[in-house]
């Protein structure tokens, strides 16, 4: 399944995150735009209400400028106050903010005129009503150029419609006082920061989708309402949303493509690794991952894998060679037995011939037995099946026993064995280590000159038992030296076979010594002789 691949999963997560980020971003952008638009619309209608509710100002103050100057107050700037009774008792130096100067203590609702000038004109409701109606008509008319959108409606305190624009939609409910929200604390009628409007000077707004309306209650209880449909805002918002979706989609596509590129680049080394691994699994152990120019985590992993592959290859080829060598060693004696018996049995022969054939067969069988024993010994040491005995013993005694064992063989070649032995207390399997001694000694005899000599010594040296076997024989060519502990490795390809050796002796010695936690080393000079050194830790 393609979606199970890391690349596609990365892509999927990446896409998901992108969609979430872009979606939330677009949504908040849309929300902000929407809030802004609607607030603008609300402000516009509120301004109209403020304009309409403030009679007596020249109409051109509202024309042209999209946002009239006296935002913060119903009363506005330093101008003659035509209606002191209605708006702003303190009209001398016009205080900023508020519905006619906000920062004074809240005036009693009845006292519209205030006592600023000490005179109190009569309250003429009819006059104000007419003023407001005219104002509203004018404001709406000015706004309705070129498209008629704004409408107003003016109710008397008892709910009867005093005036309304012709385009006012039917059935507009008269707002009930206190129904709309008061502007937030610390904000004026338009929602801007500033002193709140004085009581009785508030402009309220309400949204009856798709209409935005604002209204004001005069102190007398009349209500002037201006509204307009929100269609232009909605259309603009739809436009904005469409644009956002398109831009978001484009960004998403770019992001996905970029993600794909990044994922592909990131995955490529992994694909290389897996391709190589497939080849190796198919049997080609010589394959390696190309690590050139990847000095990163994957490069390190590849290098590690390469090292593992190399070890695997070595182990495999060693195993294969070992198997082929072992079978090779067994084939020759089997061939001897086969040819000897087949020839002997091909016709009647004198007894001496049969005897000769049987003797040859016996020799072949003995060789096979020795080989099989060696192979089993190695296999046991390899597998660590048979735990080594852990006994305290004197290494010099083991060496002495070994020397006695090979002395007849040495005498046969006229070789003398010199011992330099100090008592060394060791822990381990004395029988196995005795085998090592005998093996090394018979090796030294085999590869010595006639009438040569062998020096064997055992001593302890800083918690290490050191056993050396030195001969003054043929020595080992430098080219062969690194291989002599390999199984079936022979310096002279068939000399030792003639002498009935399996080619496993040194390999077994090394395995035994290493099983004791020690080491077996060789130093040799061709023509001068060889020295084998066994080092065993003394616990």
């Amino acid at each position, binding site marked *: 399944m393609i979606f199970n691949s890391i690349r596609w999963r990365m892509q999927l997560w990446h896409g998901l995150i992108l969609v979430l980020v872009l979606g939330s971003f677009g949504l908040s952008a849309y929300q902000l735009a929407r809030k802004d638009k609607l607030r603008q619309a609300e402000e516009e209608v509120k301004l109209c209400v403020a304009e309409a509710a403030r009679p007596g100002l020249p109409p051109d103050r509202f024309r042209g400028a999209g946002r009239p100057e006296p935002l913060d107050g119903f009363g506005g700037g330093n101008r003659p106050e035509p209606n002191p009774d209605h708006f702003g008792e303190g009209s001398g130096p016009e205080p900023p903010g508020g519905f006619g100067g906000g920062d004074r203590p809240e005036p009693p609702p009845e006292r519209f005129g205030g006592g600023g000038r000490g005179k109190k004109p009569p309250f003429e409701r009819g006059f104000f009503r007419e003023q407001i109606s005219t104002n509203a008509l004018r404001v709406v008319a000015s706004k309705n150029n070129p498209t008629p959108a704004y409408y107003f409606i003016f109710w008397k305190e008892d709910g009867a419609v005093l005036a309304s624009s012709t385009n006012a939609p039917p059935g507009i409910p008269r707002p009930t006082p206190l129904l709309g929200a008061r502007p937030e604390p610390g904000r004026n009628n338009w929602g801007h920061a500033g002193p709140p409007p004085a009581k009785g000077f508030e402009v309220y707004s309400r949204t009856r989708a798709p209409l935005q309306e604002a209204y004001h209650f005069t102190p007398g209880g009349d209500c002037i309402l201006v509204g307009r449909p929100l269609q232009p805002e909605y259309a603009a918002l739809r436009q904005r949303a469409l644009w956002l979706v398109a831009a978001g989609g484009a960004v998403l596509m770019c992001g996905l493509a970029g993600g794909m590129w990044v994922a592909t680049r990131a995955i490529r080394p992994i694909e290389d690794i897996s391709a190589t691994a497939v080849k190796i699994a198919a049997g080609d152990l010589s394959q390696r991952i190309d690590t050139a120019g990847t000095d990163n985590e994957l490069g390190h992993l590849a290098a590690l894998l390469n090292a593992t592959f190399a070890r695997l290859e070595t182990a495999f080829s060693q195993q294969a060679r070992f198997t082929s060598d072992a079978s090779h060693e067994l*084939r020759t004696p089997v*061939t*001897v037995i086969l040819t000897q018996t087949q*020839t002997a049995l091909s016709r009647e022969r004198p007894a001496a011939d049969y005897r000769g054939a049987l003797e040859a067969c016996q*020799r072949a069988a003995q060789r096979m037995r020795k080989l099989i024993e060696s192979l089993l010994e190695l296999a046991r040491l390899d597998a660590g099946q048979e735990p080594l005995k852990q006994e305290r013993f004197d290494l010099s005694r083991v060496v002495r026993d070994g020397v006695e064992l090979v002395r007849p063989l040495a005498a046969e070649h006229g070789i003398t064995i010199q011992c330099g032995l100090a008592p060394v207390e060791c822990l381990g399997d004395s029988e196995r280590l005795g085998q090592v001694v005998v093996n090394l000694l018979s090796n030294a005899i085999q590869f010595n000159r006639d009438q040569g000599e062998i020096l064997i010594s055992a001593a302890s040296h800083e918690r290490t038992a050191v056993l050396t076997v030195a001969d003054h024989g043929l020595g080992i060519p430098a080219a062969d030296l690194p291989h002599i502990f390999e199984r079936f490795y022979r310096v002279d390809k*068939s000399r030792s076979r003639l002498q009935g050796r399996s080619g496993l002796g040194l390999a077994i010695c090394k395995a035994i010594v290493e099983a004791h936690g020690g080491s077996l080393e060789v130093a040799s000079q061709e023509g001068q002789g060889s020295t084998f050194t066994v080092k065993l830790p003394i616990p």
Partner: protein
Amino acid sequence: MRVLVVEDEPDLLASVVNALREDGYAVDGAVDGEEGLYKAENYEYDAILLDIMLPKIDGWELLRRLRLRKKTPVLMLTARDAIRDRVRGLDSGADDYLVKPFDVDELLARVRALIRRSASEATSRIELGEVAIDTATRAVTRNGEPLMLTAREYSLVEYLALHRGKLVTRTTLYEHLFNEDDDTLSNLLDVHVSNIRKKLGHDFISTRRGHGYCVE
């Protein structure tokens, strides 16, 4: 037919040499590559059985050096049976390849086939007028009647038959029919030829005086 066996395992060498001798071959043995190469280069053999793992000069090297000078058919004897080794053996000039352990019968059959092939014979049966020779069973018949020949006589007949139409010198015959240990008395060959003529008819072998013998 004279055969050289190069094999370092003494028991194996002895038994192979024995088996070949009993089959009527004149057989020499060599226990290492050096001796083998010397004999192969200096004597005339009809086939060489060559082990690969040899002291001094190994089988590959021996074969390579021999092929510089001679085309004697070589049968490689080896304990290695990997395809790689077989291919290498055949590529380096061996004519056949036998993996240890082998049966003596198979060894003998392969040696026969090798000699037959080198004489460009397709089958083991050779017919010369009224005389027929079966190299596989070593039987000679005249007009369908089996004839009793000694091993030496048979070898002589077989050699001449395999080289029929060609003049075979006395030296060649001595070289191919007697091994190095045989006494090569000069009139021994004449005795064999005379015996064969008695059994197969006087005209079977014609004598080119001063040169050698010929079978038509």
